[in-house]
């Protein structure tokens, strides 16, 4: 805990949740997205329809799901469907507004690696792989990314492209997405423990807001390229007492995500 009264992880989760203010249907990913979306549902987006790839539409979890297949996402949900229906009728059909993803590595255009560090055939570190992320990145109308910033994760070239972002830039991405009939426009925001990045007209991420207590030196030290920073760089509003209470007391009392 910093002397600000909240941790960087708490700031990241709160900032990510706020991004969902106007979203209607959100596909919830494993890990950090899970807590951010559950916080949004309790704050800025009470009408949010939470979709879990395990086969749930309109989840009303009574506790923070321990995983994306937790029984609490079933009890009280609008619908429980097979995974074929979930991926086919809901995602591929184009009904998902926001796909919320995590990442091990990301490049400046928001292309994501969650598969391996090193060579695929002889990996240094084997990561979980795609899960549903690959098709979510392609078929959710837009993609939000939440991840901690580090020089190992914000890299010039990702080791494996698991989930496509803005490919080699906005122009190329738009052309390929249109020609290929993808539902998704690609990533629109990356929320980290240091700030909020939004993708500009070239398709590259640009720092829009710095979290309280974070510095531009830290940002530059945890990114492999010279980052674009908006001239009117903002400071992210600190978490409110209510946001912190929800995170600490209701959503993550064990501090699994927020340490």
């Amino acid at each position, binding site marked *: 805990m910093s002397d600000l009264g909240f941790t960087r992880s708490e700031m990241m989760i709160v900032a990510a949740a706020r991004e969902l203010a106007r979203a209607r249907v959100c596909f919830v990913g*494993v*890990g950090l997205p899970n807590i951010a979306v559950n916080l949004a549902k309790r704050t800025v987006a009470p009408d949010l329809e939470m979709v879990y*790839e*395990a*086969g*749930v539409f309109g989840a009303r979890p009574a506790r923070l799901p*321990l*995983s*994306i*297949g*937790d*029984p609490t996402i*079933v*009890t*009280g949900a609008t619908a*429980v*469907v*097979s*995974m*074929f229906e979930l*991926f*086919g009728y809901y*995602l*591929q059909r184009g009904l998902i507004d926001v796909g919320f993803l995590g990442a091990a590595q990301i490049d400046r255009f928001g292309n994501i690696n969650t*598969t391996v560090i090193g060579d*695929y055939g*002889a*990996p*240094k*570190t*084997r*990561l*979980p*792989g*795609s*899960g*549903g*992320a*690959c*098709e979510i990145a*392609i*078929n959710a109308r837009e993609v939000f990314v939440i991840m901690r910033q580090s020089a190992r994760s914000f890299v010039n070239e990702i080791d*494996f*492209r*698991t*989930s*496509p972002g803005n*490919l080699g830039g906005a122009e190329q991405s738009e052309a*390929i997405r249109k020609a*290929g*009939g*993808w*539902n998704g426009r690609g990533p629109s925001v990356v929320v980290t423990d240091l700030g909020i990045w939004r993708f500009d007209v070239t398709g590259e991420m640009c720092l829009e807001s710095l979290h309280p207590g974070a510095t531009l030196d830290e940002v530059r030290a945890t990114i492999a390229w010279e980052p674009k920073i908006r001239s009117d760089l903002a400071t992210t509003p600190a978490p409110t007492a209510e946001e912190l209470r929800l995170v600490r007391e209701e959503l993550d009392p064990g501090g699994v995500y927020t340490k």
Partner: protein
Amino acid sequence: MPGKVTSMRDAVAALVRDGDTVAIEGFTHLIGFSAGHEIVRQHKRDLVLARMTPDVIYDQMIAGGVARKLIFSWLGNPGVGGLNAIRRRIEPASLAGERPLEIEEYSHFGMVARYTAGATNLPFMPLRSYFETDLPKANPLIRPIKSPYSDEVVYAVPPLNPDVSIIHAQRADANGNTQIWGLLGCQKEAAFAADRVIIVVEELVDESVVRADPNRTVIPGLIVDAVVVEPYGAHPSYVQGAYDRDNRFYLDWDPISRDEGKVQAWLREWVYDLPDRAAYIEKLGAERVASLRPGSAPSGSVDYGSYR
């Protein structure tokens, strides 16, 4: 014993053969741990293990030496971290000269599509995924295909037809008519795609219970070879309405799985040295089991009507 009801020992001995492709499906929910442990206990070898999320059960089975290959789409300990026993068999730094585990990797929708192609007797299933990713390079079985009706290109995956699919469920009758509620995952597709099907249930019910609620039947006895009655057979995963996920187990597995010696000691203590699931549950203890019991939230009932 009536119908297809048998013991886990006999079902696995008769229906799972060395070299088989085996799918124990169940997405977080209803994971057939007791079946996986019996396969380890019987020292099956050279299996091709298929599962969307290998989960702790395949970490244990692969550590138990039963598999030569893994087909999957998300390799993690859900909500906890990595699957370390499997990673040790993939990452060269920890292989120590041993042959690596062969892997064949998809996305979730790709795995579901493979089972669906298998279940519906089709040569492939098309899907809008994999564009501009490295997955088709990593797995050449993921191939682009042009629509016969337009210039559109999508990706195709081949059918997955397991020799044996093993499905855990809340209840079935003695002929294997199986009812599931809660997350359905891809169990139906995996069962219809398979040559042989083993059903493991919390509760054996009379046929009349199934017939009173036919919409809840996911797998018909028509495709089922054996029914095994093993309450708590999905522990440490969960069964909707019966018991919660034993999250402590998943957390505890992480440090165990980081050490090959500890993994082998765990398998000895909880698999090899126990005769069956009943002994495992007794060893786990009544208190731990009782702590997993959820509160009650019954569904309303519907009226199917009587038409004579």
